[in-house]
């Protein structure tokens, strides 16, 4: 057995640290494209500062952003599981990365607000497991998503009547949510939208859409592809801008994920992802091979 607990711990610790020290290349690419198009001087200054921040973080080996937000690990696996101890390994590696100054201790008890000081706590990090029998490797996608952005999120159980012709009701809900969020979610942001299922499913899909998809990809579903483009353009036409102080780009992309729902309801979850895309991934093969995703990996 190649993957001993020690070997797995080392890989996961390095993944956590690397994820804090940079942003995924899709995010950087979209920020650079936005800067080229920007006509507002303040927004240009803000976008330049963001790109400078990414460069300095790399050079100085410091976390891109002070807030690690809340971590979720998306794990897909097959019968060759390699999952032993991973919850414990992540919890411990996060505590070690916190002690070493890569993560701010931000996790608190939800009611007493008491901070244990090391990012330990119930359900930290969060895990989403998907069984993929055809897959020979175990894939981890680690996503630290900022929580100021969460303050802009919204969820609604819509109805057929609310949906309206040409999905106008749905579109308005998304655009009005973006206007209300303003500069709170650290624009330029990416918006994840989950449609269908019930409340829990729509919200999980929304978070997943901004966490595991490449922000430059194109939705294979033609209807969703069209909606993603239209919503992104309309949100940018509100001129919220980078940092929320005006400008041409507040939204880098809209990503929609969909499942079927019940005939009585249309659950819609909206999740904002701030520009610092602290996302990293790794594929672990039973024979000892490994591949990094997002950062210095196959997606670069």
């Amino acid at each position, binding site marked *: 057995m190649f993957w001993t607990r020690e070997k797995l711990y080392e890989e996961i610790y390095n993944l956590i640290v690397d994820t804090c020290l940079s942003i995924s290349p899709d995010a950087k690419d979209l920020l650079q494209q936005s800067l080229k198009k920007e006509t507002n001087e303040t927004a240009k200054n803000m976008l330049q500062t963001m790109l400078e921040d990414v460069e300095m973080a790399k050079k100085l080996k410091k976390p891109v952003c002070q807030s690690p937000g809340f971590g979720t690990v998306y794990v897909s696996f097959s019968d060759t599981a390699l999952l032993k101890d991973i919850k414990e390994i992540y919890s411990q590696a996060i505590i070690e990365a916190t002690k070493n100054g890569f993560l701010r201790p931000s996790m608190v008890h939800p009611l007493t607000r008491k901070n244990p000081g090391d990012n330990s706590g119930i359900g930290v990090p969060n895990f989403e497991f998907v069984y993929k029998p055809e897959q020979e490797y175990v894939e981890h996608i680690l996503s630290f998503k900022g929580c100021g952005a969460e303050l802009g999120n919204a969820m609604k159980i819509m109805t057929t009547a609310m949906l309206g012709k040409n999905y106008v009701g749905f579109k308005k809900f998304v655009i009005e949510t973006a206007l209300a969020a303003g500069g709170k979610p650290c624009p330029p942001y990416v918006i994840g939208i989950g449609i269908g299922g019930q409340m829990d499913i729509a919200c999980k899909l929304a978070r997943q859409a901004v966490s595991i998809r490449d922000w430059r990809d194109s939705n294979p579903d033609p209807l969703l592809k069209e909606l993603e483009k239209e919503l992104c353009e309309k949100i940018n036409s509100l001129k919220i801008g980078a940092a929320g102080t005006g400008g041409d780009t507040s939204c880098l992309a809209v990503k929609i994920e969909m499942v079927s729902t019940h005939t009585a309801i249309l659950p819609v979850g909206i999740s904002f992802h701030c*520009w610092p895309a602290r996302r990293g991934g790794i594929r672990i093969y039973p024979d000892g091979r490994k591949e990094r995703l997002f950062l210095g990996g196959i997606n670069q």
Partner: protein
Amino acid sequence: MKEVKLNTPLKEKDIRDLKIGDVVYISGYICTSRDMGHLKMKEVIAEGEKLPVDLTGGVIFHAGPVVKKKDSTYELRVIGPTTSIRMEPHSDFIGNLGVKMIIGKGGMDEGTSNALQKYGMAYLQAPPGCAVVLGEKVEKVENVYWMELGVPEALWVLKVNEFGPLVVGMDSTGDSIYRDIKVNGKKLIEKMF
């Protein structure tokens, strides 16, 4: 739109001269405070006690740093703004303490706009997520209080040099970039469909 360099303690005149869109760099001392920090300040004042720092002419930065403990001191690694709207209920309170500037992100609401006019304060937008750039402008951690609240919520007193770029998002005349964007955005949405 002008570019301004200011030093702490701030004078009311410096702030009354600032208009939305101006870019500011600040040198001197700034204090971090967020949700729990503001509640703690209120608690201390309600008990008739003094705050550990004098905030007359002071700057409140909505932020919590990443630090590394070295012996008994803290090395500040990075720091950037947190979402300010959560501190909306406390603007009048901090204005009354003599605070002249709030630095944060995302803007604040009408209660804050009123307090800015009443006390001669300004709200400045820091570049969001840019914790390395901003952290490099912190010369040292001068002091830290209320560590029992946890690293993010403690009151950190930071010595800064040309801390910025900061954009005046809300000024002491009652103008607000955030309000302008919202009002205009509502009209645009009405015309969209």
